[in-house]
């Protein structure tokens, strides 16, 4: 069986079931599919990037800041960003499948979520604690 990295290299795009809770409340573990494409060029702020850590782990997190030659990236359910070199980036999410329908990353409601969620980053620790208590997110 080929890896996601090989699929992306050969085909240019892949669909993948998300695993983990680091992108909650947007992407739900094993319930959300993402369509990932090989990036055309540099990523933009708020893109969801697929990258490979030095230990070989594949991670799908959001770009918080674009710097020269690297990105600061953080999951929607995380409060600490990590530095990711451009060479580690394998792909970028173009759309995702949740609750029975596909949503494009250009969708207005989605962009509204992204801007509000990212603007509230300094308070994320408290917001996620409340949402978890209300069982709205994991």
């Amino acid at each position, binding site marked *: *069986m080929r890896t996601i990295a090989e699929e992306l290299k050969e*085909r*240019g*795009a*892949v*669909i*993948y*079931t998300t*695993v983990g809770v680091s992108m909650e409340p947007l992407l739900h573990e*094993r*319930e*959300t*599919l993402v*369509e990932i494409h090989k990036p055309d060029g540099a990523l933009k702020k708020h893109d969801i990037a697929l990258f490979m850590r030095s230990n070989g782990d594949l991670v799908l997190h959001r770009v918080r800041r674009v710097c020269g030659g690297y990105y600061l990236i953080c999951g929607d359910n995380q409060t600490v960003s990590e530095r990711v070199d451009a060479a580690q980036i394998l792909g970028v999410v173009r759309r995702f*499948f949740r609750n029975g329908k*596909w949503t494009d990353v250009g969708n207005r409601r989605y962009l509204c979520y992204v801007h509000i969620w990212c603007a509230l980053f300094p308070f994320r620790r408290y917001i996620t604690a409340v949402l978890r208590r209300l069982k709205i997110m994991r």
Partner: protein
Amino acid sequence: MKLKDGIVCEKIGGEFVAVATGELSRSFHGLIRGNATMSYILSLLSNDMTEDELCAAMLEKYDISEDIARRDIRILTEKLSAAGLLE
């Protein structure tokens, strides 16, 4: 035969890709690539159907011989069965 719950088939680029979601994604980690015919057969298999019923539906939709329809159905259902995706 019937497809287990959790299979999503979507067009990506010029081809169709079927992947598992939910509990099924714990046992099936791969993806199945195919064409529009595969997508049609998968949509039929969301209901419990026999090979004869699938074949009749294929002959109604496509201008193909019964032999080709049965061959395509068997190739796909064997693949699905081997992957544990059929009930």
